[in-house]
């Protein structure tokens, strides 16, 4: 398949743009592969791509029930950052950030990575102490972080509420300049096209119904398009992880919850960065089309429904208006929800499962999108070598019984609070 380049755009423009080939094949599943990845979202496609690129395993199938990127990959607020401070998280997300920075070139597909910077606001001296600690840990790991005071926040973000009667006065912020946004659909499509070029078969509209067993070992999957065999099966199906793990008899520390996101009608350039409210769970950025992209809290109760309830709409808009009073008359264009794997410590699982032949990439909670490149990279490593890379070595399933939870928010084992 042709490489995308300035020349190819020029050439195809002369031909009336009728000469573009399809970006990836639509193959019929072979009966046998080396690895099957269940789930054609960002993580699954990235895993297949890195299996082929880094580990020379090309005989790989990605099986997707619906369409590529139709789950949480297409339902997030597109934010990319690496401001984590607990061992196990910090360098994993930084690996992701470094992959993001070169992703468009690597995939030969424009993922519209925009390192516009992210402000995490602090609203009390105690919160600023917490942000200073976080920033110091980031800098000690070679990650950029900058603590800025109220005057500097006001200079850079003049549209926030700095009035006397602001309920949560802004004291300062932790700024990560390399953070930003990327176009979520393009990430799925870019990985799909790049994986396909390396020989990966992407099979859509194919639901996994169960597993094929050889005694206690999984040797493939039963699907709506027939049995497909492989000695290694990887799950990357966040939201439905427990459903597919249960079919293999594995119980997980995961609950599924709905997380909503919102887009307003488009306006002229207004919010240049990503801004996270420190007083409530709320974050805002502006898409290239001009719509303000907003996100907030979970709905709060177990839900597989990919739609949200109105109380959280109300709650999120209240936070938006409290932080950015100027948008109080903006109208929402769309809102939607994704089904999140919420783990009991707020951190993911990338590991071999107790059943031989089964591997898991899941439990992403709120943070799956930014983790897409490193999630795929580390999952590919884990599948290929049958052991974790040091960057995902802490993301085990056994950490819960061993007392090594990675609870970044210190919320304890309550999934809907993570």
């Amino acid at each position, binding site marked *: 398949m042709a490489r995308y380049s300035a020349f190819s755009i020029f050439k195809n423009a002369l031909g009336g743009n009728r000469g573009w080939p399809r970006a990836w094949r639509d193959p019929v599943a072979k009966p046998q592969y080396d690895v099957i990845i269940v789930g054609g979202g960002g993580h699954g496609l990235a895993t297949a791509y890195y299996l082929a690129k880094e580990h020379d395993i090309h005989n790989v199938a990605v099986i997707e029930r619906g369409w590529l990127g139709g789950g949480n990959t297409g339902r997030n607020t597109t934010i990319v950052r690496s401001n984590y401070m607990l061992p196990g998280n910090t360098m994993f997300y930084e690996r992701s950030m470094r992959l993001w920075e070169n992703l468009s070139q690597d995939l030969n597909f424009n993922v519209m990575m925009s390192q516009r910077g992210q402000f995490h606001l602090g609203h009390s001296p105690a919160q600023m102490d917490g942000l200073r600690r976080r920033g110091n840990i980031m800098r000690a790991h070679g990650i950029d972080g900058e603590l800025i005071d109220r005057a500097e926040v006001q200079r850079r973000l003049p549209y926030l509420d700095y009035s006397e009667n602001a309920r949560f006065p802004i004291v300062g912020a932790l700024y990560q300049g390399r953070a930003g946004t990327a176009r979520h659909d393009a990430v799925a499509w870019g990985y799909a096209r790049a994986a396909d070029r390396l020989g990966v078969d992407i099979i859509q509209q194919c639901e996994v119904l169960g597993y094929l067993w050889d005694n206690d070992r999984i040797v493939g999957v039963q699907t709506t398009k027939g049995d497909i065999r492989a000695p290694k099966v990887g799950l990357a199906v966040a939201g439905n992880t*427990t459903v597919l793990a249960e079919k293999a008899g594995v119980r997980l*520390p*995961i609950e*599924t919850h709905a997380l909503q996101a919102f887009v307003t009608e488009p306006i002229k350039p207004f919010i240049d960065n990503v801004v996270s409210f420190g007083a409530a769970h709320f974050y805002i950025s502006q898409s290239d089309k001009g719509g303000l992209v907003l996100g907030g809290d979970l709905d709060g109760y*177990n839900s597989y*429904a990919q739609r949200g309830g109105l*109380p959280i709409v109300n709650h999120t808009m209240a936070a938006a208006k409290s932080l950015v009073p100027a948008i109080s008359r903006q109208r929402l264009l769309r809102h939607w929800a994704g089904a999140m794997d919420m783990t009991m410590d707020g951190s993911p699982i990338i590991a071999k499962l107790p059943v031989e032949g089964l591997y898991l990439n899941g439990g992403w909670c709120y943070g799956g999108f930014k983790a897409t490149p490193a999630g795929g990279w580390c999952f590919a490593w884990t599948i290929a070598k049958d052991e974790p890379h040091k960057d995902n070595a802490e993301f085990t399933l056994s950490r819960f*019984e061993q007392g090594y939870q990675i609870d970044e928010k210190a919320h304890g*084992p309550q*999934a809907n609070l993570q």
Partner: protein
Amino acid sequence: MIRLNCPVCGLRDETEFTYLGDATARRPKMDETDPKPWVDFVFFRDNPRGSHKEYWHHVLGCRQWLIVERDTVSHDISSSSLAKDVSA
């Protein structure tokens, strides 16, 4: 908006309640010394796609704990009762 039928107060908005989660998780007996049942109780959940028994606290109402059976896809509620009447 989910509306929950509180046996004491009647049909009320979900915003009057707080959610705890899976009502089938059972705390081991306090003299249980095997860590496995404790790990199961604290961390592991069935997380069904479909009917789910769960605790809701009517915190802005009668302050009773409810056990509600709700479908996690459609949010249809098939039963709700006072927790003290059920789990005794």
